[in-house]
């Protein structure tokens, strides 16, 4: 292979990559918080068949899980303005991530909730726990604990999937990479570094989620 690696032109733009990576993390953080919250609501509604929301969430889950993320993103960014709803590209990116993660986490968390024996809720009632206490300690935390690894993976998938947000000019990590590559034509080096940055970010997020899980979730199991 006669390819001459030259990382210097890419390193000159390291600040762009760094800013992009930080923005990716920001998008992921907001997307995860809101997305998992939406997922918890959806999971409870679906697991306990609360009418009429169970049906609405059912349609939502099927719609989102069976269409590509990129198309959902385009629908939000290019479609909503036609309906008079103007949102900026980072808002569109966050919204798409929330909606996407919301659908997947609904199903993941629902599995956790349904894995909890009904008897435990009855036991909670027998112990005179309030409905909220019972929900928090007997339903939600044990359910999250059961599915925590799956949920962590989904969050990382959403973080990696945010790469396509560069398509609507959201200036995250992939955008920075594409931008640098279009200026210095050092595609191989640019994407090598970008891949490494994504890998490190994914590993860090995994560690952080594992720690959070041990500290706050699994402890209550």
């Amino acid at each position, binding site marked *: 292979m006669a390819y001459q690696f030259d990382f210097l032109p890419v390193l000159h733009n390291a600040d762009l990559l760094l800013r992009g990576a930080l923005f990716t993390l920001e998008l992921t953080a907001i997307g995860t918080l809101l997305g998992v919250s939406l997922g918890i609501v959806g999971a409870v509604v679906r697991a306990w068949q609360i009418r009429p929301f169970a049906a609405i969430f059912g349609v939502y889950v099927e719609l989102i899980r069976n269409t590509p993320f990129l198309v959902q993103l385009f629908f939000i960014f*290019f479609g909503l303005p036609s309906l008079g709803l103007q949102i900026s590209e980072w808002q569109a990116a966050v919204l798409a991530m929330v909606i996407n993660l919301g659908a997947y986490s609904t199903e993941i968390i629902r599995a956790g909730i349904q894995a909890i024996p009904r008897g435990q809720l009855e036991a909670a009632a027998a112990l005179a726990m309030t409905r909220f206490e019972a929900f928090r300690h007997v339903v939600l935390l044990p359910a999250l604990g059961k599915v925590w690894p799956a949920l962590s993976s989904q969050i990382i998938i959403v973080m990696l999937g945010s790469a396509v947000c560069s398509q609507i000019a959201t200036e995250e990590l992939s955008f920075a990479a594409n931008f640098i590559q279009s200026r210095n034509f050092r595609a191989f080096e640019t994407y090598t570094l970008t891949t490494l940055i994504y890998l490190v970010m994914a590993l860090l997020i995994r560690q952080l989620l594992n720690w959070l899980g041990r500290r706050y979730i699994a402890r209550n199991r």
Partner: protein
Amino acid sequence: MTKRRSALLTALLASLMLSQAPAHANGLDDIIARGTLKVAVPQDFPPFGSVGPDMKPRGLDIDTAKLLAEQLKVKLELTPVNSTNRIPFLTTGKVDLVISSLGKNAEREKVIDFSRAYAPFYLAVFGPPDAPINGLADLKGKTISVTRGAIEDIELTAVAPEGVTIKRFEDNNTTIAAYLAKQVDLIASGNVVMVAIAERNPKRIPALKVKLKDSPVYVGVNKNEPALLEKVNQILATAKADGSLEKNAQLWLKQPLPADL
């Protein structure tokens, strides 16, 4: 015998050369005598030249060729070419003129001559007709969509004043879609791309705001054809004065002819 034959051959060759020389010296007389004007036109570069639904070439370049043939009072013979072979077609004498969205540069000027410009070709910032933008400084505070890595991106990035937000998209279509969806205030692109917008969404045809790079198109003429070059220039000057060029620009480029053309 052999000697005489070779002498004959030499004479024949010499006369052939002689008879060819004057024909090349004045392409204009040649065209008039022949009764046809042979023009190289693009076949895959709308709106300058493409194949119409009737399988005939159509476009701005074809209409310009028609105009020249009409004024010369000869028939028109079109030869479809692409951007790599259009100049060789001219220099090897297969056509009399190249009207194929040909821009001028120093290397080409060494090989062929150029007429006066017959149509605009430029990269610019476009926007709503009523947006009060008259110069680079007015771009401040605006959001502009552009195709990442394209020449217009490089040009715009170089000249954009502080306070301009440049949104870079993956390809022309997304850049256009962002403008049409009002996700950006302005769009930086080529005037040819505006035709695509005009065809898709005639209600939001962007108007020229700030030119980034100007490279109008010219008729290519062989070197050492002063009479033909002068005639082409004269016809184009008349066509500009009587509004024919303006009509072509409006029809094919959906934009008025720039005053400085």
